[in-house]
Structure formats: structure tokens, C-alpha cells
């Protein structure tokens, strides 16, 4: 293996970034330039065309909330949302300062006075909602993985168990999150009773709905990965007389890791898609609720704001997928596999 300078383009699969670096290094200048044109200019031209079509098309649609917003209005609302976030943060800082001063004054008058520290209760900003969504999807996805991987391994190793569980998997796999949600909501309300709940019920409901929808690809892919393990490798483990546990850890799991990660990546993609719907209905304060609130709000800016949310959801989905791809590449021993 040769060591090269760290090229961030390589690790994030943006080919044009790689090429930009090659260009900056003066590496094969002519070739790099022409590749750069192909890799960077063509997507940019397509993006420009899309924005133009959007702009022209939007102008001709008039809704009850005014004209359909074009790229410019959406951009304005994006900036607006960010400014609102900063303003809210400043208010929060100011609130804690005032509270601190008040308490200081109180203590100065009477050292024994009881001071209260109240948390700030402003409304969550767009950026807070993004964070909530990410935490919710991560929770649902991690729960799903923790359940799905062991089930997949066991199903892959035992044909009998697979035959037993397969109909259930096929039955529940196509169920929409919207169908699960009422059931999950009722079950969570009935089961999750506590005086000082650590988590919001809406959060738990959304996370569990994500879990229920994104558990299946991981189970199926892990099962296939485990059951398609090379017969000769099993024979090696028999000749070595590996115990059940050693065999699972040293041979079965490593051998099925590429398939397992392929499943996990699919699962996260589904989870992110499901999350928005779940948050809308469960009123978990994430991006789904943001979209729903803006829709109910119905101001002239609402459609622009919803479109900001759509773009953010798309970008985050893309970043999550790239992240999983990196993880998949890192975990996959099969160098011949083409992952994209």
C-alpha cells in the first residue's frame, strides 16, 4: 500500500473534489482540466437548468397561499430561518443572564435566600428541529440494528428458524409507517407511564415507528449474508473443530459483514424517509412537525419554508447515505465489491 497525501475528495467520493486536488497539484494539468469540466461543469449546468425550470414553472402556479415560491424566495426563507435561529439563541443567552443577575442580587441582599434556576422555554428553531430529527432517526435505527442483526444471524444459521420467521418478515415489511403509528402511539401511551419521563412520548413513538419500518432490510440482508457463507469456510471451521461461539465470531459474522452493512444502509435510508411522516403525526418536534406546522400556519412564507425543509431533508438523507457508504467500505473485506 502506498501512502499518498490526504485527499479529502477520495474519502467522500466527490470525484470533482479529487480532480480539483489533482488540478491544484499540477498533476496531468490538461487531463485534469478536461475531467474537471466533465465532472463539475456538467452537474452544475444541470443544476442551473433545474433552477431555471423551477423558477419559470413556479411563477405560473398560484395557490391559495400565493404564488408557488421559486428558488430565490426559498433561499430568502432559508436565510430567514437561520436568522431566527440566531435571534432565538441570543434571547436565550439574554434570559440566562437576566436570571443570573436577579439571583445574584437576591443573594447579595440575603445569603440564605432560595434562588431558582428556570430553564429557557423558547420555541425550538429550525436548527433545533433538525437536531431532534437526527437524534430520533439515530435512536430508531440503532434499536432496529440491535434487534435485526442477531435475528438475521440466527435465521441465516438455522433454516428451520428462517422458515418460521420468513412469513412474518414478508407480512410486515410492506406496512406503511402511517399504519403503524396509531398502534405505536396507543401502546406507548399505555406502557410508558412515568412521573418524570426521561423522553418525550412523541419522541419514543416516532423512534419506534422508524424502528418498525427499517428493521426489515437489515434482517433480510444479514440472513442472506450468513446463509450464503462459503461451504469451504464452514469445512475449515469443522476441521478446526471451532466451537459454536468461536465459529460465529471468527467465521460467520465476518463473512456476512458486507451484506449486513448493505442492509444497514438500506435501513437507514428507509428510516429517514419514514421519520418525516412519523414526526408529522406524532408531533415530535423535528422536521416533520416543522413541515406540518408550516402547512397549518398557512402564511405567505409557508410554502417557501416547507421547500427549505424539503431541501434540507434531501441533503441530510444524502449525507447519511454517504456516511453509511463510508462505513460499509471500511467494514467490507471484499475489495472487489463495487460500492456506490
Amino acid at each position, binding site marked *: 500500500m502506498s501512502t499518498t497525501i490526504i485527499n479529502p475528495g477520495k474519502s467522500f467520493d466527490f470525484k470533482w473534489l479529487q480532480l480539483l486536488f489533482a488540478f491544484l497539484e499540477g498533476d496531468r494539468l490538461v487531463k485534469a482540466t478536461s475531467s474537471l469540466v466533465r465532472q463539475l461543469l456538467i452537474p452544475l449546468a444541470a443544476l442551473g437548468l433545474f433552477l431555471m425550470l423551477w423558477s419559470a414553472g413556479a411563477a405560473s402556479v398560484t395557490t391559495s397561499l400565493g404564488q408557488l415560491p421559486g428558488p430565490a424566495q426559498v433561499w430568502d426563507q432559508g436565510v430567514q430561518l437561520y436568522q431566527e435561529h440566531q435571534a432565538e439563541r441570543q434571547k436565550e443567552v439574554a434570559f440566562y443572564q437576566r436570571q443570573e443577575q436577579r439571583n445574584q442580587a437576591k443573594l447579595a441582599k440575603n445569603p440564605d435566600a432560595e434562588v431558582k434556576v428556570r430553564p429557557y422555554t423558547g420555541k425550538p428553531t429550525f436548527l433545533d428541529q433538525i437536531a431532534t430529527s437526527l437524534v430520533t432517526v439515530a435512536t430508531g435505527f440503532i434499536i432496529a440494528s440491535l434487534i435485526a442483526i442477531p435475528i438475521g444471524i440466527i435465521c441465516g444459521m438455522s433454516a428451520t428458524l428462517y422458515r418460521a420467521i420468513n412469513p412474518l418478515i414478508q407480512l410486515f415489511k410492506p406496512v406503511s409507517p402511517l399504519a403503524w403509528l396509531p398502534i405505536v402511539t396507543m401502546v406507548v401511551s399505555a406502557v410508558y407511564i412515568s412521573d418524570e419521563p426521561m423522553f418525550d412520548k412523541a419522541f419514543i413513538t416516532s423512534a419506534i415507528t422508524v424502528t418498525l419500518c427499517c428493521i426489515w432490510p437489515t434482517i433480510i440482508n444479514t440472513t442472506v449474508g450468513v446463509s450464503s457463507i*462459503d*461451504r*469451504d*469456510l464452514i*469445512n*475449515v471451521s*469443522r*476441521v*478446526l*473443530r*471451532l466451537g459454536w461461539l*468461536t465459529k460465529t465470531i*471468527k*467465521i460467520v459474522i*465476518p*463473512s456476512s*459483514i458486507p451484506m449486513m452493512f448493505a442492509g444497514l444502509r438500506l435501513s437507514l435510508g428507509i428510516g429517514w424517509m419514514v421519520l418525516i411522516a412519523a414526526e408529522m403525526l406524532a408531533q415530535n418536534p423535528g422536521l416533520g412537525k416543522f413541515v406540518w406546522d408550516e402547512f397549518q400556519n398557512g402564511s405567505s412564507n409557508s410554502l417557501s419554508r416547507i421547500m427549505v425543509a424539503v431541501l434540507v431533508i434531501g441533503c441530510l438523507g444524502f449525507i447519511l447515505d454517504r456516511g453509511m457508504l463510508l462505513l460499509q467500505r471500511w467494514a467490507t*473485506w*471484499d*475489495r*472487489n465489491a463495487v460500492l456506490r
Partner: protein
Amino acid sequence: MNNYLSLENISITFATDNGPLNVLDDVSLKVDQGEFISLIGHSGCGKSTVLNIVAGLLNATTGGVLLENREVTEPGPDRAVVFQNHSLLPWLSVYDNVRLAVDQVFGKQKSRQERHEWTLHNLELVHMGHAIERRPDEISGGMKQRVGIARALAMEPKVLLMDEPFGALDSLTRTHMQDSLMEIQGELNNTVIMITHDVDEAVLLSDRIVMMTNGPSATIGEILAIELERPRLRLQLADDPTYNHYRAEVLRFLHDRHAQPDVPTGKPAKTPEVAAEAPAEERPARLKLATG
């Protein structure tokens, strides 16, 4: 020393969709300690089945295998197998592949340091000491097979079973590997059973060549003792009349008395175990280097 390994009247019948298929019929063979045996025969004659039964990976329908007068009932490291397609774990380095076997077999008897040294020793033995940190997909086919042999030798097996170990290699690499194997065999004096399609390989390496009849119901047709001095040198033997006589004997058996029927009409579908044994193409016997 006699009857170190003994195959007693082995028959095996597989259930197939077309009814039971009798692959081996009454195979009996006695192997001395330190003896090098080659099994040769046409594709699908059940050579691999014999090997798998000795390994314990398959159970004979009737008859059985005795190793040092104890019956073989399950696979174990005392009958290490070198598989045709090397069967290294692709996610482990060369070193870790061998170390896994060493840890499993000697985990209780040897200290960590001893196991480390034993792993390196075996890799040196097959001349792979320079590439211990490489992964299997980073080394050539011949090197993979060397590692496979190192892994098998590291188990200190009573019997080394080799299922066409060099069948997937090009002929130059194969000659290198054969020379290496002779060298190791001269040093360690293992008891070896090797399956091969290659007449020269069989004559060059073996003490005895076991020639099998065509399946189904294959059995041992003839056993040819190769009484050539060791160490054997490939180039010297090329013109040796005794050597060529042995070659001719094997060729006559394979292509005259037990020629494979041109159209395998009556041949039932192969069972998975048997199918895994042989490459589809039939390799003609060749004189490597000797003719050139």
C-alpha cells in the same frame, strides 16, 4: 508402523432426485506412517469423496476409517485438509489465517509466544515469511495455496489431506509448488493423501499411486508402488526409463483400461459433494518441462 491409517471397505450412497446413487463401493486401503499416497482417476469418480470421508466431513454408508486403530467419526485437526481453492478467510491476514488454526489446536498447550513462533515457523516453511501481513486477495494463487498448506501443517496433523491442491494453478507455479511440497515432505515426513489429475505430479511425489475406476460405484482399480530414490529431481527423472515406465502405467490405466466414456449418458446427476470435487474440464496428461 503398519496400518497407521486404514480405510476399511468403504461404501457410500447418496440420496438424489433420481434415487440412491452409489458413489463408492468397497474401497479398502492401508497407509503407512510417512507414506505419500496419490489418488488419481477421472472426474466424478469419487476421489474427493474418499478424501472427505477420511477427513470426517462425510460419513461412509458402510465401512469406516481407522487412524491409529481409532475410528474416525468427525472432522478434526489431526486430519488437516488443504482445499483446492485454498479456503483462506479473506478478511484475515496471511498470519492471522495460520494463527487461527494454531490458536485453536495449541491454545492450551503452547504459550502466546510459542504460538506466535510456531505460526511464523510454518509460514517460513512454505516460503511465505515475507508476506505475513498481506490479505489473501493481495497475493497470487500459488501464494494462497502455500498459506493453505502452512495452515494445514501448523496443525501438526497425523495425516495431511490435499484435495487437488495445485489444480487451479498455472503449470509453472504448479511445478514450483510440487518442488516445495517434496522439500517439506522430505523434512517433516508427513503421511499424505493427495488427490490429483496430473500423472506427472502423481509419479513425482508419491510412494504409491492409487488409481480409481470410473464411477458410479467407483473403487480402487490398481495400486502402483513408485520405487524411485528420494530426493527426486524433476529434470533428471525426465529421461529416467523407470520414471517413464510408471507414467506409462498410469496413463494406460486411465486412458486404456478405464477410459472415460465419451458421452457420459448413463451418468446420474452429481451430488453436491461430488460436484464440488472436480473441475468440469478434463485435463489431458502432459509431460511438463520434460518434453520441452
